[in-house]
């Protein structure tokens, strides 16, 4: 593979994540900060792999109660009803609003799961110093970053329903115990995506090119 670029790290330069300035770190100091905006500088995000794993594992553990426990509890004159994420989707589907059912299904079931799998795959591929399809993997990472926030959809729906449906005798809706677990999964996977350093994908490529 012939390359027409060099990385900042190869030139002994650091780029700032926050303001984008490229600077040469002073060798004397252990911890450098950006001369322009003052953010901490590092060639690669510190302990990226270990941190991403820790957050991912926490997300995987919480994914179980998030889906198994009720996310919403409705009590009405017809009795009590508990809804999980999935039963909420089924309810929307059976009431004829299938385009919305599909949107909610993608946002609350597919996206969190796909995100966890995709991030685990990326971290494992980086750990194995894989040189397989780096462009596709970089694209996958961008997709994960872009799409993750949409999983908050269900939390917002519950928040609105809880605020409105307080009709003392007729019906009340309460947020279930899964709501916080689900919110935590979204937040943890967002942090996991942030701590993962996509430049690690290209580093394996670089060392292989260098040695050949």
């Amino acid at each position: 593979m012939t390359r027409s670029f060099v990385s900042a790290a190869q030139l002994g330069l650091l780029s700032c994540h926050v303001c984008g300035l490229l600077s040469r770190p002073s060798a004397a100091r252990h911890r450098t900060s950006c001369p322009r905006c003052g953010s901490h500088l590092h060639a690669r995000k510190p302990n990226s792999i270990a941190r991403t794993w820790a957050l991912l594992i926490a997300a995987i553990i919480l994914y179980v109660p998030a889906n198994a426990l009720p996310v919403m509890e409705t009590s009405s004159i017809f009795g009590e009803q508990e809804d999980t994420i999935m039963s909420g989707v089924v309810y929307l589907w059976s009431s004829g609003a299938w385009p919305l059912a599909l949107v909610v299904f993608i946002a609350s079931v597919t996206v969190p799961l796909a995100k966890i799998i995709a991030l685990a795959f990326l971290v494992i591929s980086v750990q194995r110093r894989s040189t397989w399809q780096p462009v596709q993997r970089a694209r996958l990472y961008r997709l994960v970053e872009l799409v993750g926030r949409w999983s908050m959809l269900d939390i917002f729906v519950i928040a609105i329903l809880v605020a409105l449906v307080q009709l003392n005798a007729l019906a009340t809706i309460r947020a279930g115990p899964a709501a916080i677990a689900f919110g935590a999964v979204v937040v943890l996977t967002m942090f996991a995506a942030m701590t993962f350093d996509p430049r690690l994908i290209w580093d394996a490529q670089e060392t292989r090119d260098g040695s050949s």
Partner: protein
Amino acid sequence: MLYRSRADSIERSLALTLAAIVLFVIANLFPVIGLEVQGERIETTLFGTVRALYDQDRVLVAALVCLTTIIMPAVELGAMAYLLIPLRLNQTPPAAALVFRMLGLSRPWGMVEVFMLGILVALVKLAQLAGVLPGIAMWSIFGLMFILAAAASAFDPRALWARLERKS
């Protein structure tokens, strides 16, 4: 595409930021959705949803909703206005670097567009239960979703730093 420079990025992003601030204020002051049951009318504002979760002891969920729909968008808009207004008036805002970093931190956590979709899903769910009345805030959140995205994409950090550094 990596980067495209536009000469009037500061003016454009400032105009969009100010428009977004107006919509954000309206979105917070007026009810998002109302419900009509047996002649009785129940409405909720953006903060009302946070309040309802808090009252049910779902404090963390309440905090998460408050953070993503109110605090973070407010920080993002405030930071952009704080940086752009003085630059437009040919002045340097103090602690610009700190505010710039806050802006970067707030961006991923402001979820106005996701909340908008949440309103739509809630509308459909509630329509089967009772008469629903979309509130003023719903329309301003709808507009805010687009204008905030436009303001963020018009905001050009390079142009900002170029002007800040020319001043100092």
